[in-house]
């Protein structure tokens, strides 16, 4: 372009509409009534296109990448003379964004805000997204999730319960007393059903499904017939249901996956794995926090229903003695360790009194 003729106007290159034909060209402006009239001329002074300034489509600035101006008939003018374009058009859509993207000291602030925002997003944003998603999930679907999950459990790992009706009745009594202690609106919101199954692989255990279905293993009823222990553990599971832990976890993990896929999409394959694995470790701490919260809910509930809240402690003490040496390290576990939970329960009971 060094030997281009010295002609007035904004220099750049022109393309005809939908064509790769490229030639040196310049933009010339003149008064055209209420709006500026813009001509696109090549070096032979032939007018390639012209229009009012307001009819031109001017691409938003992006770094020092060339700016494009498209005429109504599709002809395109392209230039890297950013200052001249800016002088012609003034502030355009995207100018402010472009300004803030400029490399200067302010970007350190942006970096700091970014890191803070990531934290806030992880701490609160995901919960908000989960809450919105839960609000939009019809109750019928949640009930169906319970039914579907029970079908899979029965199909893959569970046998019918071998408990006697008396044994079941004892537990059911405890369970009903707990449920009756809940506020009325909470009682109505979830269908609290207690099911018994023989789950040989799970030992003494109980778990809750999002819709309110609870499952207790035969081994649990046989090893811990004490109503206070039953109340503590069932109260814990009721806590999971009332505080909607299952759904929150489901939507939280879906949202994080989507966010990482779309936000960090182009970090490259190896790095994306690093991010996803880091997220799995972080989400474990979220799961542990849920367990602690359900423990506290269960303690308060069994206390309210007239049981001894120390029952839950008895359970964890025994579990700690039997399985303590098999527990994984805290940071890689979904549940806090038994010793940890006993300590937290003691502290909570002290508070209740």
């Amino acid at each position, binding site marked *: 372009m060094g030997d281009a003729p010295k002609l007035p106007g904004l220099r750049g290159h022109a393309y005809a509409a*939908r064509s*790769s034909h*490229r030639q040196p060209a310049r933009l010339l402006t003149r008064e055209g009534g209420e709006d500026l009239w813009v001509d696109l001329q090549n070096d032979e002074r032939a007018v390639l296109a012209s229009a009012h300034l307001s009819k031109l489509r001017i691409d938003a600035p992006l770094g020092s990448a060339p700016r494009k101006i498209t005429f109504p008939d599709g002809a395109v003018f392209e230039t890297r003379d950013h200052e001249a374009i800016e002088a012609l058009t003034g502030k355009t859509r995207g100018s402010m964004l472009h300004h803030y993207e400029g490399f200067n000291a302010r970007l350190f602030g942006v970096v700091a805000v970014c890191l803070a925002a990531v934290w806030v997003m992880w701490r609160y944003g995901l919960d908000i997204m989960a809450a919105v998603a839960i609000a939009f999930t019809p109750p019928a679907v949640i009930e169906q999730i319970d039914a579907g999950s029970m079908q899979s459990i029965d199909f893959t790992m569970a046998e019918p319960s071998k408990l006697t009706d008396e044994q079941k009745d004892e537990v059911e009594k405890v369970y009903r007393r707990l449920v009756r202690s809940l506020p009325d609106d909470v009682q109505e919101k979830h269908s609290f059903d207690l099911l018994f199954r023989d789950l040989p692989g799970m030992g003494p255990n109980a778990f809750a499904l999002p819709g309110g279905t609870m499952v207790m293993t035969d081994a649990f009823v046989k090893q811990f017939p004490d109503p206070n222990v039953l109340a503590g553990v069932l109260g814990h599971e009721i806590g999971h249901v009332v505080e909607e832990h299952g759904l929150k976890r489901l939507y939280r993990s879906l949202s994080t996956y989507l966010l990482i896929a779309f936000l960090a999409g182009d970090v490259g394959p190896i790095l994306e794995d690093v991010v996803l694995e880091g997220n799995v470790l972080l989400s474990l701490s979220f799961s542990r926090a849920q367990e602690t919260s359900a423990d506290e809910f269960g303690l308060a509930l069994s206390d309210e229903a007239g049981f001894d809240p120390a029952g839950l402690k008895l359970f964890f003490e025994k579990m700690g003695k039997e399985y303590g040496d098999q527990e994984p390290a805290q940071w890689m576990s979904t549940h806090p360790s038994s010793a940890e939970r006993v300590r937290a329960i003691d502290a909570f009971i002290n508070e209740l009194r």
Partner: protein
Amino acid sequence: MSESLPVGAKPFEFTGNAKEWFGIWIVNLLLSIVTLGIYSAWAKVRHRKYFYGNTYVEGRNFDYHATGKQILIGRLIIIGVYVLLNVLLLAVPPLGWLMLVVLIFAYPWLIVRGMLFNARMSSFSNVRFGFIGTTGRAFLVFLVYPILMTLTLFTTFPIWDRALKRFSVDNHKLGQATFKLDVNLSAFYMAFLWAIGFVVLVNVIGTLLLYFVFHDAVSPTPDGVQNLPVLILIQVLFFAAFLPAAFIYQALTRNAVYNNTTLQGGHRFASNVTAPKLLWIAVSNMVVVICTLFLMLPWAQVRIARYLADHTGLIPGGSLDDFVSQQQEAGGAFGDAYADLEGIDVGLPI
């Protein structure tokens, strides 16, 4: 693997720089986070536009024309379907089988839609790309071939890989001009053998070293203690053998693809990337990015873009002024959103 491009080849040039891209990237990230991911659609456009707009050959650059709104709508559709499927799967587990069947057919269709959208939203020298691949062909290339490959114990991997590259290159157009990839299978098998040869060589050397240098260390140890050295060994093997082997294969096949691709009008392409250099850039990029908590990611991206551009060339067979865009509808961006979600590359094969 010569260091210079063939005579007559005009090298590609990447004019972006890390400083400038950092500013755009970090603002993209911040706005994406504070808008709970909504801005990521516009961020994607700015990312693409920056890298395309700064890639030149013969004084002409690429461009990306999708709008944030298009990308956002595509993503919302895919997210809606994705969440719905996940919840449905929990609620009615037997439906899983039906979904699997539907997905098997939806997968190639979505990939084709993604490639179509991307091609039509990309331009070079003011002329839009096009894509003419069919879902049937994609079904064959993305689903049937991989199954056959597994059945033949991966010995047919180069055949599958060539089919993938052909599907991408042969189905792209610039305006009305078609691309054609005419490459011998032997080039792919040679790359494959080099890569395997490298893995074998490293293993042999590694075993000998272990035997002579650490003779005591490989003597039998009680069970349980052995696990740790094995884990370390796997890591070492990955970095010393498989990662370089993957780059050897990639470098050789990339060169083979470019050097055998033609664009209607007598235009040809050239590439002369080398495995050691690619490997060095990829590994050092990774280390730098992790050590700087991702803040150097823009620098890493610019660095690789610049290397690839410098080692890619166009050998024009005539004027580049004669391409003409075809009138075409790009359709929705949901295929592109699906590809983003699954991490499939449906962009231009550049």
